[in-house]
């Protein structure tokens, strides 16, 4: 809100992102429940009855090899996963991994748990992992990605589903979920008390795929050096611990395009950390 050109109220968070996150979380949760209800003879009429696998864009990624070599999808994966994969790629090429920051329910749940962690640990929150170790661990998700693609390609089955905390989150009430998945989900939620988005940072194979688009995406997060107060607010606010205040353009492979670092949120100076195309002066 502005009166006489002065900003009286500065939102500390991108509230619309929370709304979008809630929407997709509830949508996926309801569809997952509905899928179970339908399998047991019930169901909600107006809701999709799709399985979680059918609505996961990462399913499209892991089935690419089989699709190209054999012409079929990996077991339990359908055309819808392919469609979602393409849509998520389009968004990522344009705006970076907005799927991670705005849509993915697994990221949303971690953020919710982290709210409690922030209250408990305050400024210490999200700074528990030593910097060097943290930096090295950030590449772990690429190893996970390679492993997932390899085992899926060689087995033709969704082996990752047994370890996937996202699948466990929306299937913990079914017999389909594996103990390993539940354990990883539990560990992820526990770690979320100390670290923001631990699964996204260190292990998510889909985050690894989408993260690469940060290197060439169309819209970039840019800092205007001439107006920057160098207060470091943007870096402190970044859930992925990216040092926004020392770069001109954020090209970090871990950025999730949440916009929390921008002048629309934490940055106190208008039009200083912006999300744009074409660069800044």
């Amino acid at each position, binding site marked *: 809100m502005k009166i006489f050109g002065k900003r009286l109220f500065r939102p500390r968070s991108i509230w619309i992102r929370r709304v979008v996150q809630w929407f997709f979380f509830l949508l996926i949760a309801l569809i997952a429940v509905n899928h179970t209800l339908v399998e047991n003879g019930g169901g909600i009429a107006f809701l999709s009855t799709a399985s979680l696998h059918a609505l996961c864009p990462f399913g499209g990624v892991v089935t690419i090899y089989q699709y190209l070599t054999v012409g079929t999808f990996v077991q339990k994966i*359908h055309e*819808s996963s392919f469609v979602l994969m393409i849509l998520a790629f389009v968004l990522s090429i344009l705006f970076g991994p*907005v799927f991670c920051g705005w849509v993915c329910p697994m990221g949303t749940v971690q953020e919710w748990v982290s709210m409690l962690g922030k209250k408990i640990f305050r400024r210490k929150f999200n700074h528990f992992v030593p910097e060097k170790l943290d930096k090295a661990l950030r590449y772990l998700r690429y190893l996970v990605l390679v492993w997932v693609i390899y085992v899926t390609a060689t087995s033709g089955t969704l082996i990752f589903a047994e370890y996937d905390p996202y699948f466990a989150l929306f299937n913990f009430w079914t017999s389909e979920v594996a103990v390993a998945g539940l354990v990883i989900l539990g560990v992820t939620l526990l770690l979320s008390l100390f670290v923001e988005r631990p699964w996204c940072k260190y292990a998510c194979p889909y985050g690894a795929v989408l993260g690469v688009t940060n290197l060439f995406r169309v819209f970039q997060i840019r800092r205007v050096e001439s107006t920057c107060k160098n207060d470091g607010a943007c870096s402190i606010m970044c859930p992925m611990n990216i040092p926004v205040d020392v770069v001109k353009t954020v090209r970090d492979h871990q950025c999730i395009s949440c916009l929390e670092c921008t002048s629309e949120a934490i940055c106190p100076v208008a039009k200083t950390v912006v999300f744009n195309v074409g660069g800044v002066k």
Partner: protein
Amino acid sequence: MNLTSKPLAAIIFIVFFGGIAISTVMGSWQTESSKEAATYTEGEFAGQSNPADIRGSYTFGDVEKNFDIPSSVLAQAFGIESDGAATFAVKGLEEMYAASEFEIGTGSVRLFVALYKGLPFDLSVDTYLPEDAAALLKDRNLTPEQSVYLEAHTVPNPAAATDSPVVDPVPTAESASEAVPTQSAATSEALTENLIKGKTTFQEILDWGVSQEIIEQVMGAPMPNPLTKVKDYCTEKGLDFETIKVALQVEVDKMK
């Protein structure tokens, strides 16, 4: 050009739901398999749905649509409550009959449907049916060979199976020497241990002494990750699990 959060939120919704809408119109938005069984391509039954293509994800309702067998009949055959039988997934049988010594699962439904409809089925493979299913089939027009097979491949219903975990199918003199377990407990045990089932992985077969080379020779393809279930692999590669199972079982039996 700057972009703020609200337009970005709108773009996310437009891209996802617009993309889904467009793909729906184009027929690309498929969230499940078509549940239409493949048909026989040649011979007397060409054009008819082939029971061998029934999948674990099929419900009894899907089987009814494909083969015109009422869900209530399937429910009676496999000991399912009639209410909601149409939505019962075939794969649920494996869990239901988990206590049974011999696997009752998707293969059993395939066998039942084939015999019920008088369609061809590979009887060289050991597939078992519960007593209720066998009783329903006795009224159908079975060939003498099918009758003998059925008699030799019948196992107690779930409740009885729970009471007596070791299930001895009723053998016949004619068939006992081939694929059917005998009444002798010792022989039955010998035949049932190291038995390839729907949950058997390649690793288990390796553990039973069959080399990777022989497995690959049987399948005519490189062996996948050893932790893969043989059945899953066959399904994905379009191989007939029952055929591969028998061929591998022969190799496993050689190791005894």
